[in-house]
């Protein structure tokens, strides 16, 4: 290691030879040697140190973002129909796209961490003091630019996560006094979120903010060089040169940062490898949620982890009304930043410097604590014991949460009531966390489904991936069912332990795998037909079908077991659902029995049995898509229950000439979902 600066070695000197001559020629015209010399041979008072690496690491991280960002840009398309789609393509179809995006995504987070470290080092070392005040301010501006890029980048994939987080962020921007609403409208690009939100965020993220950042970075580095490095006192070692001593330390630190970034990206792959599972590269690196949909709630909405403290901070002001919101989102962060700008002035006094250090550490600690609180709230249910609150749950259920009833149930005892309130609070916290975890799981499933659909051989239609999701029975069926059917019908596998409780609450048949073998078998089972999974809770509970099954079908003299079985498979065949490998003969036999006017055909019309429609549902195509669409559209149609329809609305017929409750497409989606007919990727 050199003890004195090797000045003599580094001064430019004329060279010989062809290459040297060329270099001289070039230096003559550009003065590049002096520039390089200036750049590399900077004195580092007291020698190279690890604590000086953060600034260089940040520049390195920024360069990484520029390189990966430019290439991402080359494949990205900012519009409501193409943003998610192009990011999907990068992540799942482009060679190396997952790695490129992964590096960009994880490095952005690394940058936030590095920023905090750099800031901490500068403040603790007092490097903001005269004459470096201006450079400290430049640094604070750079920090805000970086955070601005992080915020704007989050929206660009146009997935549910980015969309809802951005809605919250831009709505908060609307709280800025006077200009807020206009500011919000300018950022959003109009009164509503759409193409122009994306184009604007993209222009900010990839153009305006980085260009400004480069400008400020040049100033920051120029001033840094002008004043020289602020050495940590006391200096015990001899000075060294930036090149190569400090550069080596910087380079090692950069490599470490890159290693961590790669580690984060590849960790799941390693885990999969160890578990012997296949590695899906599309699942590595940055997540891609389901396409943004303003009409679908996204209960897993959270900002990126480094903004989580701000998010949690808003909750601190619970019950403060609008002023709390304003304080939490605008005033406190604004004041904090203002105080940071004043640090170089406060730091002139010894006590002031101590205050600055304490303040910075307090902010970082506070942010850390808020982040931990946010995570704790969200994941609480993972370790909390809900069973310990079974009594609370029961009491709440019994009283319906009614204050007076609660008080009465607790004997109007103040102390007991207070205790109950405390426990109720705990219980609610667990439930909130549970809801969040369910939402996260759902979000993941939705995201996976969207990716499956986008990967169909037919690719994404011009209307975008959202149109695929909206016309997907697997995605829409459960939503439509929950909204229109679930108030009466259950939809649960009867083999599940919780099924019985759900059947008890339903007031119409369980529609799980309706029309399939299991369903048909249950229908013709004397034990089940009058149960809550079939006609039990309906007006048909003592109807002819129920008495037919209980009285006649169960009588082996009238119906031989293999005849019942034949009808069951014939019904499934009619529904065009799997018949469990039943022979064609058996199906034909069942069909014969269905048509037989002494058997099913005495009430039901089937094939050419000439039984009139109207008394019992048509068995032609029973349970098929067409049949299901028909009964959902209008159960009072001649083919179904013209006389004795039990409460089922005609979803496809408008009342008094108005439009129907459900469109043809929506009814089709429900029918397809009930029949389990949706796109399945190969290998699933």
């Amino acid at each position, binding site marked *: 290691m050199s003890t004195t600066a090797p000045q003599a070695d580094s001064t430019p000197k004329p060279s010989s030879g062809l290459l040297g001559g060329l270099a001289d020629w070039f230096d003559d015209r550009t003065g590049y040697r002096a520039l390089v010399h200036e750049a590399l041979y900077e004195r580092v008072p007291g020698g190279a140190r690890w604590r000086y690496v953060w600034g260089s690491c940040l520049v390195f991280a920024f360069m990484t973002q520029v390189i990966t960002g430019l290439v991402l840009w080359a494949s990205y398309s900012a519009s409501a129909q193409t943003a998610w789609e192009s990011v999907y393509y990068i992540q799942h179809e482009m060679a190396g796209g997952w790695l490129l995006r992964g590096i960009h995504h994880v490095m952005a987070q690394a940058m936030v961490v590095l920023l905090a470290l750099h800031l901490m080092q500068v403040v603790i070392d007092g490097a903001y003091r005269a004459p470096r005040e201006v450079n400290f301010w430049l640094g604070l501006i750079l920090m805000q630019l970086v955070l601005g890029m992080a915020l704007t980048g989050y929206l660009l994939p146009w997935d549910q996560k980015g969309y809802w987080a951005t809605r919250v962020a831009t709505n908060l921007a609307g709280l800025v006094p006077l200009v807020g609403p206009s500011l919000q409208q300018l950022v959003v690009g109009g009164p509503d979120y759409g*193409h122009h939100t994306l184009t604007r965020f993209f222009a900010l993220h990839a153009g305006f903010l980085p260009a400004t950042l480069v400008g400020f970075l040049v100033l920051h580095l120029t001033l840094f060089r002008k004043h020289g490095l602020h050495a940590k006192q006391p200096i015990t070692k001899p000075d060294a040169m930036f090149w190569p001593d400090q550069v080596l330390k910087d380079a090692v630190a950069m490599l470490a940062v890159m290693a961590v970034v790669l580690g984060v990206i590849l960790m799941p792959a390693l885990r999969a490898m160890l578990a012997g599972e296949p590695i899906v590269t599309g699942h590595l690196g940055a997540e891609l949620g389901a396409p943004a949909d303003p009409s679908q*709630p996204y209960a897993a909405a959270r900002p990126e982890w480094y903004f989580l403290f701000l998010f949690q901070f808003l909750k601190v002001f619970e019950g403060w009304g609008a002023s709390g919101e304003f304080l939490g989102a605008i005033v406190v962060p604004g004041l904090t930043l203002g105080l940071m700008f004043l640090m170089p002035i406060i730091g002139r006094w010894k006590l002031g410097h101590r205050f600055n250090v304490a303040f910075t550490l307090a902010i970082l600690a506070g942010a850390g604590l808020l982040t931990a609180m946010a995570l704790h709230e969200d994941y609480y249910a993972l370790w909390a014991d809900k069973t310990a609150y079974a009594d609370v749950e029961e009491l709440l259920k019994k009283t319906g949460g009614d204050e007076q009833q609660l008080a009465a149930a607790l004997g109007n005892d103040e102390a007991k009531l207070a205790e109950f309130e405390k426990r109720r609070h705990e219980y609610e916290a667990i439930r909130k966390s549970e809801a969040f975890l369910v*939402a996260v799981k759902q979000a993941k499933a939705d995201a996976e489904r969207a990716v499956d659909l986008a990967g169909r051989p037919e690719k994404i239609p011009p209307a975008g991936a959202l149109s695929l999701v909206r016309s997907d029975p697997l995605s829409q069926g459960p939503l439509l069912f929950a909204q229109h059917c679930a108030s009466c019908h259950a939809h649960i596998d009867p083999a599940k332990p919780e099924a019985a409780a759900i059947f008890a609450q339903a007031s119409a048949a369980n529609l799980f795998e309706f029309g399939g073998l299991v369903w048909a078998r249950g229908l013709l089972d004397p034990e089940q037909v009058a149960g809550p999974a079939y006609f039990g809770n309906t007006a048909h509970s003592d109807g002819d079908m129920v008495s037919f099954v209980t009285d006649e079908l169960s009588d082996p003299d009238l119906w031989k077991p293999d005849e019942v079985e034949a009808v069951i498979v014939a019904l499934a065949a009619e529904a065009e659902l799997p018949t469990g490998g039943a022979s064609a003969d058996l199906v034909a036999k069942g069909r014969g029995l269905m048509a037989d006017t002494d058997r099913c055909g005495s009430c039901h019309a089937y094939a050419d049995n000439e039984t009139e429609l109207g008394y019992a549902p048509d068995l032609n195509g029973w349970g098929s898509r067409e049949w299901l669409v028909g009964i959902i559209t209008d159960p009072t149609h001649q083919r179904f229950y013209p006389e004795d329809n039990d409460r089922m609305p005609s979803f496809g017929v408008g009342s008094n*000439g*108005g439009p129907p409750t459900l469109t043809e497409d929506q009814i089709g989606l429900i029918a397809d979902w009930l029949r389990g007919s949706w796109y399945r990727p190969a290998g699933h």
Partner: protein
Amino acid sequence: MSEHTKADPATEGRRGFITKALAICCGGLATLTPVGAAIWAVLDPLRRTAGAGSFLRVADLANLPDDGQPRQFPVITDRVDAWTGYDAEPIGAVYVKREKGSDTVEALSATCPHAGCFVEMDKESKCFRCPCHNSAFTLDGGIVAPSPSPRPMDSLECQIDKSGSILVKWQNFYTGIEEKVARP
């Protein structure tokens, strides 16, 4: 070749001032043109409004049981997003309820008055809950204290038309403030 003469300082000073002023004016004007054009275009979104809220059909009265239970309905309408025209797109959601024996309905916007997330119904706790910052509301939309939300859920005007359809006046409101102010 002109001969170098020494100008008198007064003329020099005046000339110098005019030169400087001209340089600044020319350069400034030249630069301001693109800047002006840029600002003009950047401010375009301020001219755009969502249009006054219009009454949109969300459901049929006949299909809304009169049990006082709010039910969620999507709000569907044609929508223009810059250059794309969508027909019959879901743009949001409302909760509509009908009291026992009543022929009128009440509607609440599903958009959280706190910061615009999607408020969901918690059937078990018989309340509304916003997943974002845990604002809770009663089934009438009232605030359950303590809440980050500064105001109750936003009620929307309703009508029942001749054919028995429920029409709701769909509007967006500014979030995070105590008063309910419709966005233009």
